[in-house]
């Protein structure tokens, strides 16, 4: 190689920014390029816009040579068009999963790469549209990031942004500048923002926020521990004390939350009924040596029992929507200032099913059967737009919420209590055979959620699995461990698609007792 280059560094510096469309990754890349220009360094950047920008993952690549143009005397380095594994000095990711992607692609290497990433999550459509919980766990990314980089700066930049009212790209620039890993002065970065001329003031504030954080002059505020959202009344205290006293420490927090939820939902007496039901589960759990399983059965049964007993009928929805703390929460969520009036419109669309649920059992059943006979009756819904914070709009919800006393006399209430009874029986019988089977049955009501069609599909799926695999009367031909596997597999299948295709397939397996044809069941 030629001699003139020997007085210069033998390589350029390379950075890649992984961002999501709309986060200002391009602007960030522009600032870095501009800062390098201000330092009078040769610099270039490339990017891939196009479809990637439309909410997908996208990257911006910046390369510069930390020698000023005047020293180079017209000579220029050859710089690359692509980020290169093994060559990266800095990898900057605006989100945790994108940091994972950079690691996966080999962009972070222990000998030279500084990894700067925000640890917050922006969920992909696949995670968002799942019927249950399919959120990607980020712990492995953090571990890999720390282990595979020369230096890692990983923290929740989004929270820092929320805390300080700044934009993430400006904060990232501050962190980059403050890391001291690039031979570019912080002032040059700041000048670059000014030169950019777009939203200069807020971006400078964001930049200084990132800089202050990395210099330790500013900390992330601790997240306050969320308190239970359910009300507390004096009459509940005895129940809570009992829950705390009678339940093993592994289960007690869940049971106490369950008590609060159920008592708040209906009445202290109803809370007491909840506690009695879980106590029975606990007895069975203890008898089956639940201690060695951390009383998982009691915890899970207690969790789903509380959720089930506080099922969402129209009274419940009206109750939740007319609570005073709801307005405060909404204002916060939508970012309305105190001085700004807000008009809230609810989209409610009850049908015969919802009306039937609040009728007395006999009438409710009759209406339900009548509804099932004709398609138009099944499809009939009454669209309501309620302005919750207009007086009369609120009054409608309020009056409905006041119907709470009537609830125990309704068709829906009776149906739910009966189904809960069978479920508790099944668990009690199962735990004597196989602990895991009982836990799987305890988790099965997770399928019972949603409203309208979603709820009907969920409960139908629940019932099919319950009848075929979980009920005490099930004719499942395998042993208890296989049965536990089957219940779990069926629950997962029910959450795999919203047309119950996976569940149909699974329930058609030979070891599973034949179910009556679906049409007939409906």
């Amino acid at each position: 190689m030629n001699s003139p280059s020997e007085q210069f560094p033998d390589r350029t510096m390379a950075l890649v920014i992984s961002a999501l469309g709309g986060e200002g990754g391009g602007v960030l890349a522009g600032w870095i390029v501009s800062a390098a220009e201000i330092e009078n360094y040769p610099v270039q950047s490339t990017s891939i816009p196009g479809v990637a920008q439309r909410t997908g993952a996208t990257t911006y690549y910046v390369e510069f040579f930390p020698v000023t143009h005047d020293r180079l005397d017209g000579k220029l380095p050859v710089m690359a068009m692509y980020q290169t594994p093994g060559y990266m000095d800095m990898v900057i990711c605006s989100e945790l999963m994108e940091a994972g992607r950079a690691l996966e692609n080999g962009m972070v290497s222990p000998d030279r790469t500084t990894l700067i990433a925000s640890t917050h999550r922006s969920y992909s459509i696949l995670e968002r549209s799942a019927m249950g919980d399919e959120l990607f766990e980020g712990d492995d990314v953090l571990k890999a990031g720390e282990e595979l980089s020369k230096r890692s700066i990983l923290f929740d930049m989004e929270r820092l942004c929320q805390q300080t009212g700044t934009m993430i790209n400006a904060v990232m620039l501050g962190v980059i500048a403050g890391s001291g890993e690039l031979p570019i002065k912080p002032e040059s970065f700041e000048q670059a923002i000014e030169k950019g001329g777009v939203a200069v003031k807020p971006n400078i504030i964001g930049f200084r926020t990132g800089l202050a954080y990395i210099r330790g002059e500013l900390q992330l505020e601790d997240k306050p521990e969320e308190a239970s959202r359910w009300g507390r009344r004096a009459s509940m205290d005895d129940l809570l004390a009992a829950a705390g006293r009678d339940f093993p420490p592994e289960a007690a927090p869940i049971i106490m939350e369950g008590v609060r939820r159920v008592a708040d939902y209906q009445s202290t007496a109803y809370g007491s009924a909840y506690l009695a039901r879980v106590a029975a589960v606990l007895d069975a759990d203890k008898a089956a040596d639940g201690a060695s399983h951390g009383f998982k059965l009691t915890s899970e049964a207690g969790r789903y029992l509380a959720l089930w007993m506080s099922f969402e009928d129209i009274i419940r929805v009206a109750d939740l929507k007319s609570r005073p703390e709801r307005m405060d929460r909404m204002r916060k969520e939508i970012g309305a200032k105190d001085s700004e009036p807000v008009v809230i419109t609810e989209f409610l669309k009850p049908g015969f099913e919802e009306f039937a649920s609040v009728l007395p059992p006999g009438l409710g059943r009759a209406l339900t059967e009548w509804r099932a006979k004709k398609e138009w009756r099944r499809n009939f819904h009454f669209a309501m737009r309620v302005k919750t914070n207009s007086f009369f709009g609120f009054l409608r919800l309020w009056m409905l919420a006041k119907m709470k006393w009537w609830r125990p006399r309704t068709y829906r209430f009776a149906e739910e209590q009966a189904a809960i009874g069978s479920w508790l029986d099944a668990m009690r019988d199962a735990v004597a055979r196989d602990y895991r089977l009982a836990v799987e049955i305890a988790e099965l009501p997770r399928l019972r959620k949603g409203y309208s069609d979603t709820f009907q599909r969920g409960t139908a799926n629940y019932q099919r699995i319950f009848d075929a695999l979980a009920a005490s009367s099930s004719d499942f031909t395998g042993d208890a461990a296989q049965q536990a596997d089957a219940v779990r597999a069926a629950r997962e299948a029910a959450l795999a698609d919203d047309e119950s295709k996976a569940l149909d397939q699974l329930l058609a397996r030979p070891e599973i007792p034949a179910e009556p044809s679906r049409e007939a069941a409906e």
Partner: protein
Amino acid sequence: MERSFTKEVALLRKGKGEIFEGEGILAITKALLQSGVSYLGGYQGAPVSHLMDVMVDSKELLEEYGIHAEACNSEAAACAMLAASINYPIRGAVVWKSTVGTNVAADALSNVASSGVVGGSLIIIGEDYGEGASIIQERSHAFAMKSQCWLLDPRPNHTRVVDLVEDAFDMSEATHTPIIVEFRIRACHVTGRFECRDNKMPKYSAKNPIRDPVFNLDKFALPPSTYLQEKLKVEERLPAAIDFIRKRKLNEHFDGTQDDIGIICQGGLYNSVTRGLQQLGLADVFGEAEIPTLCLNVTYPMVEDEIVAFCAGKSAVLIVEEGWPNYLEEAINSILRRADVNTTIVGKGPFPKAGEYQAEVMLKGLAGFLEGVVPRGMDLAPISAAVAAIDKNKAQAAELLRAPIPKRPPGFCTGCPERPVFSALTLAQKDIGKVHIAADVGCHTFAVLPPFNMGNSMVGYGLGLASSAGIAANFGKRTVAIMGDGGFWHSGLSTGIGGAMYNDRDQVLIILANGYSSATGQQYLPSTTAGGGVDVNSVMPIENALKGLGVKWVRKQHTYQVGKMKKLLKEALTTTEKGLKVIIAEAECQLAKQRRLRPLVAKALAAGDRVIRTRFGVDEDTCTGDHACIRLSGCPSLTVKPNPDKLRKDPVTTVLNSCVGCGLCGEVSDAAVLCPSFYKADIVQNPGIHDRALDAVRRVGIGILQGARPPANNGAGATQ
């Protein structure tokens, strides 16, 4: 255009000796002005949209030079513009995305190339190949070969690019041939600098018009002229081109000490080759390499003696050529065979046949070549080690990450007006069963991705309706074709609607009319109104065009009304009325709309005017975490968060602050009878006295009711 490119236009004004700092595609635009073009044209598409945008925005500058710029309706129209240079000595350049655009332009391209030109004619193509590409993966190279026009693939260095563009005009004139200048995506977007020359006044222009028409039968594709043209192409223009390349030294030969081997690369890949060599310790930071390199800035035609001279005496030469077929490698092999040179040619082998030559592919390809040919005296250990280090690092990462990182497919933007149409189509199909959907090119193609997973085929821009001609009659149910307004004006009007009407086809067409060519950057279309920003007299409404073609069943529907859209779709799919049924699903592109409204709102707010901000929200108390709403929408601002409820495990739905309040959430939850969790919030900013008074009264009234609630709920807000 809604966006302003004033900054870019200022760059185009720079004069001799000034330094240009900016994107590649802008540098190319500047080179066109420095070449004295008389006319410009093109059709938008990544990665060359920017050139079109800037061109449209720099009207004033162009007028000063008398340059005519045209936003063409298709690439065919753009290429046809070059006809101006067939008879007259005027320079022109057209631009489009390739290979798709070149396919559309192919008819005109063949004819212009065959007739030959007397004025310099350039076709700037953005080769949309590799990462982030949104089109089929093909090479444009074959077009140059079959039409006998010359293909430049410049080394991505601004100074070199600008020089080559200017050279290309000379070459076009010297060889009477249109020239294709190809730029890869990253080359279009790469930033860099060069020293400007003055912009040149065109020889002829609106300021100095051509006076007399030229008649020359030799320029027509009629026998016997066609035979003459073919002969000219092969016997005169080709040798002239080879001569020109040699004389102007368009290709670059970089010497190296390791002269028993060599590398021949496409100009566009030169930087990547150099980075690979740098990483292997075979080149310094300035690109001085140990291995001699021949950088082909012109990839068609090849200069045979240049190739022979480079290869002679070398034991092996690596051809770095992206994509398939490997035209260069094949050609070089036959050149050497003819010259009886026995150098081993290596190309596809260490390099993959398919796919972009990204950094890692390049590094491994170079290393594979060196390991295979064992160059004289070269220590291969560090080369193998460099590759092994990358593999080891990736293996370690995979092990630590334990599972592959989930994909992040793109989708419709926040508040996109096309999304509701697919929500409605999903709901309609739930009622009447699945139908065959012929998709089209545009933002709406995203419907084939999650959460909609909708669409059965897609064969080209504006071809949605045409592509269902074969299946419509052979399918048990009425089929649906999709077309955007961009595709409609590009070719759909004639290939699709004209064809369907002429052949009495019984099917449904949904025209997604968002008012712009949105996927390429919201360029205007003949039907663009831009929210009233376009003079009504110059707007060409789509429904008028449909009427003109005799379509009887035409319905216009605002897209966000999902319930109505669903009803309309069901009607179109089930009505006994035969013939083409067209639904114009209309609502403005949200990106364009927000860009238009944001400054207006900011201004109104600053002035203290009453402004209502609308957005949606989800009650986390009532949401049970089924996410059916997300499966029917996929809006980026409609996402999930860990459930704040201590008992519930499934994440709850939440609306981010990026929500633009388009209303789809409410519409979907209404039309699909989903759940009562959605609410719409109208936030009154800068409230008037009336607003405040009403709010105060409401608060008092509601407060009284809330205070009067049964004791069970009194402590609801209290924390413990």
